[in-house]
């Protein structure tokens, strides 16, 4: 469950922006910047909440920049996303060298526990406790976000607007839904959640910052959105499968099963490609995904 947290945050954010028709490939860069900002602020203030706030703000700013480029400047989304990835990769490393220099650790979010259950005599209760109820705040928040995202997308006016803009921006535009405003909103929100996803690594899970620590998780999160068929609960399923594979891969190394660790580390990436092939066969993507909207051209 812990390993699923960064995937969930990033992929749910990406679900919003893709549903509105923007393919944001800068997730990885936003996560790295969020991871660094969260770590640095926590390191300076000893307060993980401030760190989380910083990560969210930085992520949202990067999302906003992506929105300016892809919505207002109507740039090719795939390539500009890669630009933001490179920017986040370089910038987080640059700041790391300038501001920290060496690898430090912080005390991130503490584990929330229920003392009664921990001391329970029943083995089952203790097992449930250690699997489901012994995580930090961010893990619970990520899982709570799934039904919230589902509700917002499917049961609210703004969700309807988001889906309309992603499916048929021309029609949405004639009904006085501002395609630009909706896309600005979703891409910024996506950036914010990606920033938090990064923070969930640096101050939730590992409590360190390293250059390039996200190791492709941002891109996998984008793939999870495809895999989850653009639905929050589908994304949840995908995130669980991937974190399971990640956990397996760690177990393989711990137990000393004779698979070279480098080969084991490959598994999530291979799985991503397979998942993509499988997912694309099954469902239609939002009709206007990664298409630039220009009034009067549809």
């Amino acid at each position, binding site marked *: 469950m812990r390993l699923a947290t960064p995937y969930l945050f990033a992929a749910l954010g990406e679900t919003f922006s893709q549903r509105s028709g923007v393919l944001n*490939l800068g997730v990885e*860069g936003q996560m790295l910047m969020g991871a660094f900002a969260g770590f640095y602020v926590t390191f300076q203030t000893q307060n993980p909440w401030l760190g989380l706030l910083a990560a969210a703000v930085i992520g949202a700013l990067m999302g906003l*920049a992506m929105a300016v*480029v892809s919505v207002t*400047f*109507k*740039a*090719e989304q*795939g*390539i*500009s*996303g*890669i*630009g*933001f*990835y*490179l*920017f*986040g*990769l*370089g*910038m987080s*490393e*640059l700041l790391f*060298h*300038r501001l920290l220099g060496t690898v430090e650790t912080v005390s991130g979010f503490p584990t929330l526990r229920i003392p009664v259950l921990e001391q329970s005599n029943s083995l089952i209760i203790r097992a449930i406790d250690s699997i489901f109820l012994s995580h930090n705040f961010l893990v619970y928040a990520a899982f709570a976000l799934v039904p919230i995202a589902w509700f917002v997308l499917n049961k609210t006016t703004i969700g309807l607007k988001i889906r309309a803009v992603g499916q048929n921006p021309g029609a949405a535009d004639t009904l006085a839904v501002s395609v630009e405003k909706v896309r600005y909103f979703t891409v910024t929100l996506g950036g914010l959640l990606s920033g938090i996803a990064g923070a969930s690594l640096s101050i939730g899970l590992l409590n360190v910052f390293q*250059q*390039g620590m996200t*190791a*492709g998780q941002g*891109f*996998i999160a*984008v*793939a999870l959105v*495809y895999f989850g068929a653009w639905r929050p609960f589908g994304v949840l399923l995908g995130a669980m499968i991937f974190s399971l594979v990640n956990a397996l891969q760690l177990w393989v190394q711990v137990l000393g099963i004779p698979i*070279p660790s*480098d*080969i084991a*580390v*490959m598994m999530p*990436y*291979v799985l*991503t*490609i397979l998942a*993509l*092939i499988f997912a*694309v*066969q099954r469902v239609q993507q939002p009709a206007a995904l990664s298409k630039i909207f220009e009034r*009067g*051209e549809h």
Partner: protein
Amino acid sequence: MNPIRAYSALVTGAFGSTNAIADTIVKATPLLFVGLGICIAFRGGVINIGGEGQMIIGALGTTAFALALPDAPPGIIIPASLLLGFVLGGLYGGIAGFLKAYFGVNEILTTVMLNSIAVQLMNFLLRGPMIDPDQFGRASRIPQTARLSAAFDLPRLVPTRLHAGAFIAVALAILVYIFLWRTTIGYRIRAVGLNREASRYAGINTKRYMVLSLALSGAFAGLAGAVQVLGLYHRMVTDGSPGGFTGSAGFNGIVAALFGQLHPLGTIPAAFFFGALLVGANSMQRAVQIPAALITALNGLVVVFVVSSELWRRRRARRREMQAAAEITHAAQPVTPTPLEAVKSLNSFPQPS
């Protein structure tokens, strides 16, 4: 921090001496190879982010080949091993092209994943089966292969590190230009890139050409890897990080190609420029302690700005079209068209791709 000192360190680092200029060209060489591939892919309407992985696969193939045949005659063996890198990189790029064309899988995501897979494969091979026997006894165990036989060394301009790879790259840039603009296959690649639907109606097998553009793109990256091995390192070596072998040339080549307007000949000066930035950044890091990661961040911004500026170029082209069309309508039809007619004629304009 003194910005003038920083910039002067950057400039002298890149151009200050014969060696510096040679190093700049050496750094620019893989960028140009990768950039040429990027020109082909992007012109063909597919996006190849997999230069890193394709370089690694090409280099691994070349290295394995050279290790297996240490005493072959250099006349045949160097072209053969370069060709092997070219082919392997092409096959690796072709995977993403195949998945894109026949399964509709987003090629950006697959190429990024293939990068990570190639890095892990390299780490595995260089720490295990292909490790330099000399490294066995040592505690450090640097992940590198044994030095290749000198028969495989590309000719070098002694005493600098400048090797023949740069000349091969420039020659290929001219060839790619001829290929894209003067041959039928090149024309079809560009047609598919400009308008996939129209090309399909014109009878072009668009799927095959999408695979071809990505495979060719990967092939040039694979060649970049092979040239790095034969010209510069004379072995395969990494430091365990994703860019340990490639020096992120697979990404920087994209930046160079975009900066060169996706034109093979424009990519030559662009690659040189980014080569200079990379070499200069290293000496800047030594002189004023600005991390060389600055260049990665800067490259990201360059990409963002280049794709953003597309809008203005498109708008300008559109305005020119509108003016021309307005003049024509004006001359032929002095009567003001009704709003409906005006809308119709607007819609019939060729749309910018």
